[in-house]
């Protein structure tokens, strides 16, 4: 599968998929999408990248260990739920606030952070598995 065409095109595909996954994740609250799907797409892109450039390259460009990303996701999601303690509401009550950026209003909320946590978990776990499987294959002559 290591053809020149694939190796050349892969980074582009991966970049597009990653941006798309973030877009899918962020729009999830109003349109089809969300952290789960976004994470899946991102993980798929990592698998593609791994096929094209090898696991070592992927690990280098990821910088963090995929499992650490997943763990961070769990913590982020939990933390998003804990934020409601500050307004003296039960665990995971959502908080919304609106940020004015120039002419548009950006709504931020704790569910958003929660969804980002889900994204990280799915992405991290699946990439970790995919990478581990790929590296297994590579080690064999």
């Amino acid at each position, binding site marked *: 599968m290591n053809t020149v065409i694939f190796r050349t095109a892969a980074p582009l595909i991966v970049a597009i998929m990653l941006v798309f996954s973030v877009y899918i994740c962020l729009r999830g609250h109003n349109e089809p999408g969300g952290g789960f799907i976004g994470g899946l797409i991102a993980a798929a892109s990592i698998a593609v990248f791994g096929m094209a450039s090898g696991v070592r390259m992927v690990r280098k460009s990821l910088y963090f260990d995929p499992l650490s990303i997943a763990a961070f996701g*769990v913590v982020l999601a939990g933390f998003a*739920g804990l934020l409601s303690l500050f307004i003296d509401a039960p665990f995971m009550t959502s908080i919304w606030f609106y940020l004015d950026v120039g002419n548009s209003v950006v709504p931020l909320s704790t569910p958003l952070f929660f969804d980002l*946590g889900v994204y990280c978990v799915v992405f991290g776990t699946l990439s*970790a598995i*995919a990478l581990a499987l790929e590296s297994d*294959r590579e080690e064999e002559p």
Partner: protein
Amino acid sequence: MAAALAPLIHRYLGRYTGWLLAVVPAAIFVFLAGFATTVNAGNSPVQSIEWVPAYGLNISFLIDGLSLIFALTISGVGTLIILYAGAYLAGHHHQGRFLGFMLAFMGAMLGLVLADSLLTLFLFWELTSVTSFLLIGFDHTRQAARRGAIQALVITNIGGMCLLVGAILVYALTGTWEMSALRGMGDVLRDHALYGLVLALFLGAAFTKSAQFPLHFWLPNAMEAPTPVSAFLHSATMVQAGVYLLSRMTPVLGGTQVWMTILVVFGGITLIWGALGALKQTDLKQILAQTTIASLGLLVLLIGLGSTYAISAVIVYFLAHAFYKAGLFMVAGAIDHEAGTREITALGGLAEKMPVTFIGAALAALSMIGLPLTIGYFAKEEMYLGLMKADPASIAVMAVLVIGNAMLAGVALLVMIKPFLGEAVPTPKSAHEAPIAMLAGPIVLGAAAIVTGILPDWLGHDVLVPGASAILQSDVESHLTLALDFTSLLLWLSVATWLLGVLVYRQADAIRSLLRRFDAALGWTADTVFDLVMFSLIRFAGAVTRVLHNGRLEVYLIVVFSAFALALFVPLFTMGGLDWIMPSADLGNWSARLTPPPLQPYEWGILALTAIGLVAVLIAGTRLVAILSLGIQGTALSLIFLLFGAPDLAFTQLMVEILSVVVLTFVFTRLRLDNRDPRPFEDLARDGALAVLCGVGVSLMLMLVLTGTLDTRLSDLFTATSVPIAHGHNIVNVILVDYRGFDTLGEISVVMGAGIAVLALLRRQKKPVPPVPEAEDIKPKRRRSRKAAKA
């Protein structure tokens, strides 16, 4: 409240000096003592925190005479014990941990006696079991310590389960968890058909904790713990929890003939058994452990009698017992510490070298014998006073009491005189006086025994009356007095007890050898029975594991899917779900069912695609083709989702399909992909049948569900509130991250855990054997988590 202090106690974990830590229980003691006036005035402060209001569950605490006496004893003796432990284990490298366990246990015990809600009581009850497990097994490098710890845990936890079930039953019958509310409702329970069961459960709990006759054997084995533990847990606190529970439940469950008979009979047997056991032993700690059993039996017997005098005796005796037993244990520990042995036959003449210890031991022992001017005297008087009747039952119980007390007095003499008086015997270590922290306990407790013995008025008014009133739920009058009445039978009974005690002391050696011969003739004890049961249990568990957990993935899958098929079909058959499908149904119905639904051509196309994918999987010649065909089928499925209004689901399905194909391909490229496994026909038939069964079951279930009207209350609610409450237009996502965020949180944790497990498997099997199990593991796991997340 003391419970508010409990977390504080835990914060002290890991600090090192006994002197510093002793401040904690001392502070609690002073704090609790402040309640004395309130309680004496007849009030009982209650504090409660709501826990699960829907079930009326509260964490609540109550201070009345009874709990106050227990709590003060626990914190008071606890202070001395912590001091003592600081010196006893000085230099031990786990001393900080030990003191931490001790304080944790003390907190649990305080919680137990102060609890008002039965559930709170249960919670702390189990906490005491767990912390005592840690304490008994503290010296975990010794096998005997581990065994003692496990035994205590098993036995007391059986009781704990009894308590939980009993508490739930009581709640079911009366509608309240609060013991303060239960008191007035005793008749509800006593007249109920289930009274016997409730009683049995509570007795089970109390008997296991307080080491009553058939279940007494864990207590001596628990003596493997360091001496401060024995002094605290097994004399003054934990074992008294059962006595406490029985006293607490007296107004609710007590007063019936069954209650009286069981408690008196078992208490009596335990008393005599423990006293005989004590005479059988030569190890100081074992002797004391056996007398503790005897004393517990005595207390249970008294609770069973339930008369005003008997209950007064319970209170006084409990206090007296805590004083002298804790003191004597500390003395035993000091002797062991300084002389190097606890064998009573190898000790003698220590009084010269350890005079202060001797004084402490003597004070405690005199109180245990029940001589005048000690609190033990009043305890004995009270219990005899209640039985000054002429009916045969009273006389029998009285005889048991006198004999039991006499034997205990004999043992007390033994403990007091043998090691300290007589000729000096050479000991393993050259004996000298123990450090002051270790002397404080015996001396203070011994002094307390005397002081309370000299002040009957105070003892009567400030201890006996509130305590006994709390148990009996009526006002009790104190009648303790120091005056000796030489004409009364009472005094002569006491004298008889003392004389018999002296006789027992003189003949101790003869009695011991007689008892030991008897034991040898019997050949087995409750202890060996326990071992037998435990080992059979372990063997049984091993056998079950070998059958169920045989390491073959195939078998696991068969079991899982069989269970799945059963779960589908059993409700279908039992709940009449299949009625409409039976042949008796008219044919018109059938033809209506078999009419093709009105679908667009492209919808038919997708359905066909699904079928094609499915068939392709089944007939695929190589694994790679099978995997790809599975992908076709999954993609078609996601298209169906897309068409019927679930874009989210379709999206996810598609991504999962892609990833599954990719991952499976990775895995299978490590194998030769040209062939499928050759499988014997029986295997094919079995798996095929199971698959068809599950498939049919799911289809039937779905059809059945679809015939019913769709309950749209929930989806209506979500549709209506999604935008105003959660500011989101995508209901699925809103449900996931907002309404059911907690589920999702658990879900992603599971995903992550599964990921870690898969990675671990992969790393472990880097080189050897083709990883077929992993491949099949990954897929179901991910499918399941996806379904759960979207469900």
